[in-house]
């Protein structure tokens, strides 16, 4: 069992036996499993997943308030609730918040929590790097939002076209916060991406070949590969912008011969893969939920997987459809037009497969199922309006109108967010050990569905009527009044639905004690996370699960009898792992990830305001790196033989150990 001593972090090289117990003499090795110390020092992928989820909901409220401000301003013509300058900041921060601080981390929440469970692993490949990703994301998000108190938020729109973002046109510090804040969250995404790609490729349980992985795991893998390759392009764009704004470089200075299209290309080469980064995790989630509540396996599993991979590849060849109005020339426009139409094909395959899964199934309309069907319907609408953008002449008319706003809200809210909300209801009992109330859940769903369509449906009409996006008001008499009012009403209905969701969480938790606990497998599901108790024990699986086929857990419960009928042979409670954790080894907690990530916003503030702060940040960064490298990933004091906490039983003779050795050899 000493095999567990292998350290796991890229740069944290094994530093041998002569290591001090409190590296650098700063921190004692954290031991707390509960309380705030337990949370800030945790390297447990489940706690990190929960923190990702909670932070993304927190930012969701902030982004939602910004959305309500926008809608209140636009409710009637000629309103003066927000000045033009403030309106610019609010819509920019709304976009950045929802994309980088809500949808991406919400996807990360599900991936962190579920990937190791679905592939039968103890944790992710690099637990401390995982903690680093989370804290870096959180501090980056806070850093971005502090701009409100330090001279104003970013005001160049979320795609921040040059030269509009130069110091001349955007003199406040908002765009500096944008460039540095997204750089910080980019570091978080990149580290997380490397970590999760390695986890899925390397940490699968015995027998789980790639084509036996659940669809959610597959979609997460594709997403993280996209993250790994897309984020550096954004990083470069942001570096150029930062150098221009802070150090007077000339990248977007037209006087010096710059070409503003450079920014557009770099941004959208990142930006289009980014939209698949947002949506694919949600596709994975509904691909888990729909089979469970249709009581059928997913229709066409390999097509589901390969269409996801195809989206991942083709997503790199369509970026210029965001730029049809920028004068690229007819050949580029034609090429990107065709490639954009093509990418609708694998997405259509997915829609078809979900519907074919529903077809003939014994459907139960629980809340997660409603959200999943909602995704299929709403994403189809958004996808269809997306295909209309592929037609370049029509797109010339759509560009910068509310039609585009309608489209991307249908795919990101109606797609990604619907999937995540369904995922919350579906996995809540697994994560917290109690159900969210289904009746309130249905109220939540219908309010969301109605509010969503009221808000964004009319924007199609407004856009085609010619209403520009990103303008803080409109005049009376253009025919915009009615639909804007409808849209504003819808936005407040969405706000009400979010309130219902939070009420549901609080109420369900209060009543959890009086209801029967959900048990390991409340929905009669198909993947491995349901083969262990709810809430998930800290060590996940008692032993490595041995996988023999796709939907292995389901096949352990159901088999065919002599007449070919499928019958239940085991109740989940009989065959689920009990979860005593006696043979488990867990990575030790650490304070270094949070201190290291605290350095990034310091460096950011320093670059904007005073270099002295940046030097402090750099010192924190270096100190944390050294402390991290000198701290062994395993806690030697915690284990009797220096490797893991499996005190009971005799590790040298127990059957599971000999099994592990065969695998290890």
């Amino acid at each position, binding site marked *: 069992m000493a095999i567990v001593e292998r350290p796991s972090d890229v740069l944290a090289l094994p530093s*041998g036996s002569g290591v001090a117990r409190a590296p650098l003499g700063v921190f004692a090795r954290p031991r707390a499993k509960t309380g705030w110390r337990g949370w800030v020092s945790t390297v447990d992928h489940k706690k990190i997943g929960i923190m990702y989820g909670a932070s993304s909901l927190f930012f969701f409220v902030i982004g939602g308030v910004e959305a309500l401000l926008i809608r209140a301003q636009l409710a009637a013509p000629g309103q003066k609730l927000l000045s033009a300058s403030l309106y610019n900041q609010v819509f920019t921060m709304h976009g950045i918040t929802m994309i980088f601080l809500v949808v991406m981390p919400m996807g990360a929440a599900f991936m962190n929590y579920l990937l190791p469970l679905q592939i039968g692993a103890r944790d992710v490949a690099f637990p401390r790097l995982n903690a680093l990703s989370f804290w870096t994301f959180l501090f980056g998000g806070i850093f971005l939002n502090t701009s409100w108190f330090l001279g104003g938020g970013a005001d160049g729109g979320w795609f921040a076209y040059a030269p509009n973002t130069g110091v001349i046109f955007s003199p406040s510090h908002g765009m500096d916060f944008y460039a540095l804040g997204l750089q910080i969250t980019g570091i978080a995404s990149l580290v997380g991406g490397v970590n999760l790609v390695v986890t899925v*490729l390397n940490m699968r349980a015995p027998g789980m070949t790639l084509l036996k992985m659940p669809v959610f795991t597959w979609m997460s893998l594709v997403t993280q590969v996209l993250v790994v*390759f897309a984020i550096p*392009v954004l990083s470069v764009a942001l570096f150029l912008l930062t150098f221009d704004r802070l150090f007077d470089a000339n*990248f977007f200075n037209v006087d010096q011969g710059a070409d503003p299209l*450079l920014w557009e290309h770099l941004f959208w080469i990142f930006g289009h893969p980014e939209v698949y980064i947002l949506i694919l995790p949600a596709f994975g989630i509904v691909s888990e939920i729909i089979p469970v509540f249709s009581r059928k396996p997913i229709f066409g599993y390999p097509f589901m997987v390969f269409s996801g991979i195809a989206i991942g590849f083709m997503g790199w060849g369509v970026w210029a459809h965001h730029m049809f109005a920028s004068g690229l020339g007819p050949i580029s426009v034609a090429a990107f037009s065709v490639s954009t139409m093509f990418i609708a094909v694998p997405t259509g395959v997915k829609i078809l497969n979900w519907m074919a899964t529903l077809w003939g199934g014994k459907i139960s309309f629980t809340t997660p199922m409603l959200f999943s069907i909602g995704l299929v319907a709403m994403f189809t609408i958004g996808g269809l309006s997306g295909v209309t953008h592929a037609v370049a002449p029509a797109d010339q008319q759509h560009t910068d109108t509310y039609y585009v706003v309608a489209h991307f809200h249908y795919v990101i809210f109606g797609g990604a967010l619907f999937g995540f909300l369904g995922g919350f209801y579906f996995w809540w009992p697994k994560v917290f050990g109690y159900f969210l109330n289904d009746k309130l859940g249905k109220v939540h769903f219908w309010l969301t569905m109605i509010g969503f369509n009221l808000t964004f449906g009319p924007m199609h009409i407004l856009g085609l009527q010619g209403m520009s996006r990103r303008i803080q008001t409109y005049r009376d008499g253009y025919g915009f009044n009615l639909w804007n009012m409808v849209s504003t009403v819808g936005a407040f209905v969405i706000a009400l639905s979010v309130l219902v969701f939070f009420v549901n969480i609080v109420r369900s938790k209060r009543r959890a004690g009086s209801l029967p606990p959900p048990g390991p497998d409340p929905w009669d599901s198909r993947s491995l996370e349901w083969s262990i108790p709810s809430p998930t024990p800290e060590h996940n699986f008692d032993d490595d699960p041995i996988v023999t086929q796709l939907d292995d857990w389901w096949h352990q419960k159901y088999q065919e009898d002599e007449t070919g009928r499928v019958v239940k042979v085991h109740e989940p409670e009989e065959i689920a792992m009990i979860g005593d954790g006696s043979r488990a080894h867990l990575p030790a907690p650490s304070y270094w990830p949070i201190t290291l990530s605290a350095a990034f916003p310091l460096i950011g503030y320093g670059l904007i305001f005073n270099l002295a702060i940046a030097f402090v940040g750099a010192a924190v960064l270096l100190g944390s790196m050294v402390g991290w490298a000198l701290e062994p990933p395993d806690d030697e004091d915690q284990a009797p033989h220096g490797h893991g906490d499996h005190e009971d039983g005799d590790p040298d003779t127990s059957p599971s150990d000999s099994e592990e*050795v065969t*695998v*290890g050899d």
Partner: protein
Amino acid sequence: MTDAAVHDPVVADHGHATSTGISNTKLAMWVYLGSDCLLFGSLISTYLLLRHRSVGGPTSEEVFDIPFTSVSSFVLLMSSLTMALAVSSIVRGDVRLNRIWLATTAMLGAVFMGGQVYEFTDFYRAGLGFTTNIFGSAFYTLIGFHGVHVSVGIIMLTSLLVMSLRGNLGPERAEAVETIGLYWHFVDIVWIIIFTVVYLIP
């Protein structure tokens, strides 16, 4: 059982072999290097787009000293050879030779960096600052990012050397040397592209 597991290079840290047979650390390095390709790809594209768009001088033709840069490029390429020798010596268990090659590699990297510092100073004296024209911004950014990568590599090599001197780098940790070697070779390969694109192609 303990020994077998410890000496098996493809054992992950959670008690069983990795699914691909490649260790987590090495796979993570490969994935990261893939990501870095896009970073340099974007920077090189930016440079290619902007290099001839300067409104005023000095231009690349006026400042470049190609024989000098060729020599420092040669030094960097030779460091890939010594890096490979460092890996092969630690795999064979020759700790002493490994130290020599690690030190040589770091030294060659440092010489290359010294050349870059000299070159930057020289260009600056010739009137090409970071903000002078668009070529200056693009040039210093691209070369600077590569320089940062080489410097990080030197720090990692030095760390390996310190570990080795403290007796913590034996053949059982050959993979750590190999993984950092991957990074080092990558940075060299990127330099071949940068040298060709920036200095050799007019």
